[in-house]
């Protein structure tokens, strides 16, 4: 090995491995709500299209299916990268705990398979399948999407609350109880929270596109429907998410006190702990800045004991067994962002609900549409923030109290190079994805009024003749 190559490949891999995992997960998680929730919304539109012979709904369902084809493909391949990365970045983790951690993934594989098969049938089945057969071919996508989410989250929850295995003196897994691995303590809370999140984010994100269109004056029935279906889904999900989030937070309070101390920025164990909005912790362990609501953190942790509830502080843990001060600040900030956005989105949901109850219509004001148009991005920020809370809050552990992140990482010194390459590739793919989706939408807008030769659920088209030229797809 040349000296240069030696230097280039001798960089500490741990921070780069963490960055690469964080970056690729952060990218993939944006596609998750689309993969999980979009099929459901397309089916709602599809159902309406068949039941009421609604052309606008039919057109929506078809276009959504086409967008889904693109986002699902990118989601599938970015998800595959994560499978590689478990080994490439964390070989010791997989080598030691794969026998337990892998089990939920085996089940996830099953759901992913079903999803990939039926999404293909649904996307390609518009023309020649019977309407109801075609509709039902979409239902497994919804089921598999939820099943897949629950399985992956079960694996993540296991990292927070490892259970269902026995180690020998050398630290090797000698016995596994698969059901205790899957149904670990954190699993129900986290799985529910993420599943609702997928519908919440997917709903707000898709609705935001149509809200933006309506702001630009595209207020036809098609755009209205494109807004109402996903927005209604999100409006149902938003208050539900407050409940699942609250339950999860209380679970973390009881079971993952080190994470909770970082979330609430509690330096010392005490009762009557204030809820600090923003603010930050310094190296001496004092909290400065931010707005303090007296006793609120204690009260929220357990309303039964109110402000007398004792919250374990960071002083209760050895400094290398809990997030660093910087990490705690990140966790706390992410927490505040998630809660803040969640509250805002719930208020938006309430506005919408009141308007329906009172006027039997969505709110008419432009302010509502403006907020709704921003809600898509906001909900993604909240999703990312929530994931930061659970992942950074678990530091320095990869398997809580069993394996540290730094001991789990690969020894390959070249990870910083792959990190840079991965970033470049993902940025390119992400940008292109957005451009392609916009291009599709613009193309369809321009096509309005033009004659089309394709009939959905129509008779078999004639076989294509060989045609010279570039823009004639066969089939």
């Amino acid at each position: 090995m040349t000296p240069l190559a030696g230097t280039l490949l001798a960089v500490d891999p741990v921070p780069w491995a963490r960055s690469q995992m964080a970056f690729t997960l952060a990218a993939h998680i944006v596609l998750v709500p689309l993969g999980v929730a979009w099929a459901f919304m397309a089916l709602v539109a599809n159902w309406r299209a068949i039941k009421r012979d609604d052309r606008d709904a039919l057109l929506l369902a078809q276009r959504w299916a086409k967008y889904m084809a693109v986002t699902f493909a990118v989601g599938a391949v970015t998800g595959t990268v994560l499978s590689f990365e478990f080994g490439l970045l964390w070989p010791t983790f997989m080598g030691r705990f794969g026998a337990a951690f892998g089990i939920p993934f085996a089940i996830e594989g099953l759901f992913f398979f079903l999803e990939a098969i039926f999404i293909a049938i649904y996307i390609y089945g518009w023309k020649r399948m019977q309407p109801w057969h075609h509709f039902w071919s979409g239902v497994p996508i919804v089921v598999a999407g939820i099943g897949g989410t629950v399985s992956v989250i079960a694996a993540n929850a296991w990292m927070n609350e490892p259970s269902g295995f026995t180690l020998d003196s050398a630290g090797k897994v000698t016995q596994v109880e698969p059901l205790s691995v899957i149904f670990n303590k954190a699993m129900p809370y986290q799985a529910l929270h993420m599943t609702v999140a997928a519908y919440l984010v997917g709903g707000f994100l898709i609705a935001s596109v149509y809200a933006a269109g309506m702001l630009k004056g595209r207020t036809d029935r098609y755009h209205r429907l494109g807004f109402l279906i996903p927005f209604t889904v999100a409006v149902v999900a938003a208050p539900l998410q407050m409940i699942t989030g609250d339950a999860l937070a209380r679970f973390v309070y009881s079971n993952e006190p080190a994470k909770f101390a970082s979330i609430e920025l509690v330096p010392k164990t005490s009762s009557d702990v204030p809820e600090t909005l923003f603010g930050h912790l310094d190296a001496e362990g004092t909290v400065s800045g931010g707005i303090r609501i007296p006793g609120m953190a204690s009260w929220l942790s357990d309303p039964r004991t109110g402000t007398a509830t004792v919250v374990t502080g960071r002083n209760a843990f050895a400094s290398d067994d809990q997030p660093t001060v910087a990490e705690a600040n990140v966790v706390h900030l992410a927490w505040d962002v998630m809660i803040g956005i969640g509250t805002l989105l719930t208020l938006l949901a309430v506005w919408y609900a009141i308007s329906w109850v009172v006027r039997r219509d969505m709110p008419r004001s432009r302010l509502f549409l403006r907020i709704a148009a921003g809600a898509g991005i906001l909900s993604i920020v909240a999703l990312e923030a929530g994931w930061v809370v659970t992942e950074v809050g678990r530091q320095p552990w990869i398997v809580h109290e069993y394996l540290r992140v730094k001991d789990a990482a690969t020894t390959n010194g070249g990870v910083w190079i792959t990190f840079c390459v991965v970033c470049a590739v993902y940025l390119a793919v992400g940008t292109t994805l957005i451009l392609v989706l916009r291009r599709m939408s613009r193309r369809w807008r321009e096509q309005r009024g033009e004659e089309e030769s394709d009939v959905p659920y129509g008779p078999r088209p004639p076989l294509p003749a060989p045609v010279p030229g570039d823009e004639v797809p066969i089939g």
Partner: protein
Amino acid sequence: MSALVAVVLFFGVTAYAVFGGADFGAGFWDLVAGGAQRGQRPRALVDHSIGPVWEANHVWLIFCLVVLWTAFSPAFASITLTLFVPLTLAALGIVLRGSGFAFRKSVFATRERRGYGAVFASSSVLVPYCMGAVAGAIASGRVPAGGVAGDWWSSWMNPTSILGGVLAVTVCAYLAAVYLVHDAGRLDQRDMVRYFAARATCAAVVAGVVAFAGVFVLYADASYLFHGLTSRALPLVIVSALCGLGSLWMLARGAYRFARPLAIGAVAAVVVGWGVAQWPYVLPETLKVAQAAAPTATLASVLVVFAAAAVLILPSLGLLYVLDQRSVLQEPPADAHERGGDARAV
């Protein structure tokens, strides 16, 4: 029980080679199809042929990874530790390939289609090469067990890995061409049938020559595998050779119906032969399958999931392939509402 799970793993590897491999091979033919004008029809056939099935086929890779890391975690850790470079390249190639393909289908301008198509097609060659190189590295005993990394460069830049990579690319191209002949026939595109039949024949001959040369490479570079292939795996090697020759003969006679199963047989026999030749090692001569195996309950879970897959997935896959082969699955309609058709026709 570990042996049974190893069989399940190799079932996945074989399925990935036979189905996923053909999708990669289709990308190869896309790459060499020539300019936008000349390559338009073969590319359209490739699009049409793999569009509905490639994602489902791709899941076999996930299946293999998951079974490997759950049931044989120490082997997975060793493989990913040593073969960091080719596996990273493969992962990036998979991203570029999948997104390139999806993007190309969604845009209509020639220039853009060409760009995405080039990304899709070139990564379709990169990925099987890397996978083949990884297989070669494992088979030639260059992945050490026990949490130490083998050589980051020579572990996959060696005669057996290069053989594995080249063989993977040619075999994928061969499979794909045979499938495309069939699909062209199904769509009544006579010229495309001739086009891909000629290429299938070429690819078959090249794959045969590479495989034959490979015998000497393995003799010199991977003695354990060579020994296995010439003893207990010999029947499979012979089956593969016979199937390969048979499919060539069927191609020459124009009996394309029979060329396809024979081509599948040739590839499947080689992959299974690799597994049998390597037995009882997961990493030849350093880690045995039984040593690498997870605790019994984990192995049992993998088998239960596999059984569930057999009940749920195989019929679903069958449905997908049948619908696809009967041309029920077509490009989605463009815009419907502008025209006056009845949405509930049929």
